[in-house]
């Protein structure tokens, strides 16, 4: 007796075979990276201590925030940040400018992404733009990832990506990354991307809808998301992870703490097997007032971090250093410190006077027209209840020349750039002893 299937049953069976055959072929193409890529050795930099500061952004009377940096192939540095009438407004754009270390000057501020341009590219409604970060793929392509929102607040964010093969002179159309099953909401970027040994890219991201937690995306060479790892649980209140690759297999991750339980400390996790397994999140010794932090691993293994090293407020920004892989930290240099002004319940006149002095101290250009800088800052940080200083969202990189560059939000009105070398850092540490 033959046991043949009716034609429609046979058809459905063939559909199963074909569909799953294709599915298994795709699934077998995913691999797990063996190691992190470690950056090639850098120059130690000039032996003379050097420290300079200036403003990277130039537009007046706008709100600027969330800056990031990347070194270009020719040694210049490109910064990205978002700017508009206020955070979350429809007119917010992603701006960029280039710093030429040889001339010690920032070029003109340009728009690299707008809300309208992004929505035409991704063929979806986009209501606002947010944090941008850039990464360099193994083939040299520059990738720009930035936050886009289609509905609601930042909890409704998703990530959009663009590429450039000419270091940011021109950009490809934007593409949306799909990273979450629930309407693709709540994935944001802040930390610098890094590479795995197989050429795939790790992109630290975070989630802030209902629970707040850090995540890690892995992207293949075409930019497709091929893996996603959770770095902390929803109850850990940890976000904005930054990855510090120590060697091919070890990395430390520091995250902003957004919880209310004291002590308010940055959250840390680590891996010893290139991210296959992670330690449970713990509170680090670094204080954190629910604010972003940034860090780099120096060629000698020390870790340098920039953060608001206090439990409340963003009116002081500090460089701290660890010589034992992130276990213990000590202050290297106070970059900004207006704690005293906070205690004095600052009125507008006093705020303007201090801000003028700070602007003059930052940049020679600002020294010639300090009033414009002060007015821009006043617009952003003064309310009917007084004024407050804000120095936040630091982003640190070390370039091939050995110099360290830091950008951060200066009173929500400008992006401040600080450049120094290891000789200056070592001098500060010697002075601190």
């Amino acid at each position, binding site marked *: 007796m033959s046991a043949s299937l009716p034609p429609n049953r046979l058809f459905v069976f063939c*559909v199963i075979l074909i569909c799953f055959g294709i599915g298994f072929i795709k699934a077998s193409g995913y691999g797990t990276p063996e190691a992190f890529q470690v950056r090639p050795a850098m120059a130690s930099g000039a032996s003379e201590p050097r420290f300079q500061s200036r403003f990277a952004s130039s537009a007046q009377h706008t709100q600027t925030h969330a800056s990031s940096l990347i070194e270009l192939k020719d040694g210049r540095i490109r910064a990205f940040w978002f700017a508009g009438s206020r955070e979350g407004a429809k007119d917010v754009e992603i701006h960029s400018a280039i710093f030429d270390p040889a001339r010690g000057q920032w070029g003109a501020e340009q728009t690299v992404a707008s809300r309208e341009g992004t*929505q035409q590219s991704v063929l*979806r409604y986009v209501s606002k733009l947010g944090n941008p970060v850039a990464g360099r793929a193994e083939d040299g392509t520059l990738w720009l990832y930035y936050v886009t929102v*289609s509905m609601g607040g930042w909890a409704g964010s998703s990530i959009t990506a663009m590429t450039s093969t000419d270091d940011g002179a021109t950009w490809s159309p934007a593409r949306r990354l799909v990273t979450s099953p629930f*309407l693709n909401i709540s994935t944001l970027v802040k930390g610098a991307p890094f590479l795995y040994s197989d050429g795939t890219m790790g992109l630290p991201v975070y989630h802030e809808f209902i629970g707040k937690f850090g995540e890690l995306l892995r992207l293949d060479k075409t930019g497709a998301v091929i893996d996603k790892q959770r770095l902390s649980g929803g109850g850990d209140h940890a976000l904005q992870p930054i990855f510090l690759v120590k060697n091919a297999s070890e990395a430390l991750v520091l995250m902003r703490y957004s919880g209310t339980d004291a002590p308010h400390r940055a959250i840390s996790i680590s891996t010893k097997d290139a991210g296959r397994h992670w330690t449970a999140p713990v509170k680090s010794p670094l204080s954190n007032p629910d604010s972003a932090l940034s860090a780099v691993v120096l060629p000698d293994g020390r870790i340098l971090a920039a953060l608001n090293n206090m439990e409340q407020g963003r009116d002081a920004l500090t460089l701290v250093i660890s010589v034992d892989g992130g276990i213990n930290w000590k202050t290297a240099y106070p970059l900004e410190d207006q704690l005293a002004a906070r205690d004095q319940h600052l009125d507008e006149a006093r705020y303007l006077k201090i801000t003028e002095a700070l602007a003059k101290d930052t940049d020679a250009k600002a020294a010639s027209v300090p009033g414009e800088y002060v007015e821009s800052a006043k617009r952003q940080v003064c309310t009917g209840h007084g004024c407050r200083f804000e120095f936040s969202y630091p982003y640190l990189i070390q370039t091939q020349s050995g110099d360290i560059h830091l950008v951060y939000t200066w009173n929500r009105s400008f992006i401040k750039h600080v450049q120094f070398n290891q000789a200056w850092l070592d001098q500060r540490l010697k002075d601190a002893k």
Partner: protein
Amino acid sequence: MIQFTDMTGLASSAAAITAAVFLLPGITRMSRPSLALLASAVAVVALVPFGGFPLAAYVRGVIGDLSITSLVMLILTILRPLFGWSPSNTKAKLALQALIAVAAIGLYPLALGLGYFDPYRLGFGNLWFVSALLLVALVAYSRRLTVITLSIALAVFAWGIGWYESNNLWDYLLDPLVSIYAISAVIRHSVRALLKQRRGYFY
């Protein structure tokens, strides 16, 4: 130039908009040619740019690309009145709704941060996950629950060929809209069954 995945994504939003029209009360009383005309008109209106942007793109901005399971159900919703098909196999429909409801209740709370395990990660090419889906599809096939078999198999196929922007298999199997629909249908069915049982006690 418009990408393939944008075309498929916009088409899925247009299908959702068209299907929404078919849910209007009294619509099934229209003649088949009128229904076909209405469906075509709504789909075209959804895809034609007004002010530089089609309605489907606004819907896509909010709901994302519809899962293949949603599309299977929407297409059945649209095509049934057009072709005068009889109501689908109730047992298969209920089993599919129950399966979607269980999967959604398992996926979304965990993916949104409950605990440390993220089932969404399995959708990035986990071989065990694909194998488990094959098993479910075969069990459904053996029980003649063809709508389940085809929904799962077509979702795996679409993921395999990169039909949408998403590279995650879950996004082809489930979306929040079909999940809400399935969970409410299961609840509705359970309440009805319970009431029927109680009436049985009284009489």
